[in-house]
């Protein structure tokens, strides 16, 4: 692993790794857009008065959270051609990743909205806000703050999960690196480099999630503090 020539060969083939990294970023980015759209709609479906939509939310979340992403991907990759639809690998990956992550985002959105106390709705209605105006101006802005840290964690998971593209003769960093190591038999430098590249993608996001979490905690404290200060008489109301 510490032999210089191995690393020299790796660096001479750097294009393989760069291409793989680009593919992973592209697939993750597209899947993220899909998962956000699906997740927000499906999450809000859990909270509407229409029973059919609530059912749709439950079935979606339970099915996709309780079956492996790899099986879902195989279903699309090997199954769809027999239904007359043949998709490129990237499309299969984006759909599989997006729909899978969407199920987790739906739960985060639902929990975020449910975290807002009922009194907020009541206060808004008493001021003459309608349902949608309450949602848009009062509830959702607060819910987004609650949901942001776990959402960022899901983005980390999405990037890591793009590894499934390596198992459907594929299109991503892991696949490119794995074929490179199979050809050169340089397992150690190959996998170490992939690990470092993945960490370059995920660690900043994980760090951001922590920061958001701390900011959120501090934001709450600040909301409480002026009230306490006023009650204790140290700040003029």
């Amino acid at each position: 692993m510490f032999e210089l020539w191995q690393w020299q060969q790796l660096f001479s083939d750097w294009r393989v790794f760069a291409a793989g990294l680009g593919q992973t970023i592209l697939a993750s980015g597209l899947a993220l857009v899909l998962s956000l759209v699906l997740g927000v709609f499906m999450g809000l479906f859990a909270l509407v008065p229409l029973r059919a939509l609530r059912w749709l939310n439950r079935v979606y979340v339970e099915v996709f959270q309780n079956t492996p992403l790899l099986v879902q991907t195989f279903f699309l990759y090997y199954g769809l051609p027999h239904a007359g639809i043949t998709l490129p690998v990237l499309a299969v990956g984006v759909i599989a990743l997006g729909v899978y992550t969407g199920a987790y985002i739906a739960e985060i959105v639902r929990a975020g909205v449910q975290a807002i106390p009922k009194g907020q709705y009541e206060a808004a209605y008493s001021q003459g806000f309608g349902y949608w105006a309450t949602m848009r101006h009062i509830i959702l802005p607060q819910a987004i703050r609650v949901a942001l840290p776990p959402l960022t964690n899901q983005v980390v998971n999405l990037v890591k999960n793009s590894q499934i593209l390596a198992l459907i003769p594929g299109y991503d960093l892991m696949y490119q690196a794995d074929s490179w190591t199979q050809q050169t038999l340089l397992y150690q430098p190959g996998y170490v480099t992939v690990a470092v590249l993945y960490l370059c993608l995920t660690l900043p996001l994980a760090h951001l999630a922590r920061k958001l979490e701390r900011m959120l905690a501090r934001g709450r404290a600040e909301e409480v503090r002026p009230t306490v200060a006023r009650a204790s008489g140290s700040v003029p109301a």
Partner: protein
Amino acid sequence: MHALQVLFQPSSLTFLALGFGVTLEIAAATIALSFVGGIVLAVIRYSGDIHPDHRAAVAASRAALWWIEAIRNLPMLLLMLAMRFWSGLPPIWAAIAGMTLFTSAVMAEIVRGGLVSVDRGQWEAAFSQGMTSPQILWHIVLPQALRRMIPPIVSEFVTIIKDTSYAWGLGVIELTGSGAILLAKQPAAAMQLFAVIAAVYFVTNLALRAYSRRLERRYAAAAY
């Protein structure tokens, strides 16, 4: 119709059942090992909080933090592949080792959340009674922490069961892998085949969740 007939032949079903057995083996071994590994990592990580004046504890705590952060932000398949080609273990053990490496880091964060949620006053009270840190951990803090952590820990167990499917990437014929092999015999049955396999994972995980809800109720009742 023909596709389904092939899929539901006794020999195919036996083959899938064997694969499911391997899936359960990998999952059970990973759950057991990473549960223990996660607790150990979490305790090391937490020791710096309890003994801020103890230099070794603080250093160990730092090291555990870096380890956990690095491992849980990597894709698991990479760890499994690395285990396969670096260690020379047979594929199934490489899969278990890679999964355990990853999952114990995830589990450590869950357990640490539980440890932190136990009031610090309990530590002080127990220290004042002359108990040592390991005694306090074992008799007072861990039981309370784990009880509170049942839902996220079970979610992680469900994730483990799903993640066993990556072992196919190392050539282990578990449930997903046995499906991939049957697929070669009957490519036209792909959708039905993977729908059946998905259903098996689904039912297994629902059963695990139902069991955990019962556990949770029992321990919640026992806590008061």
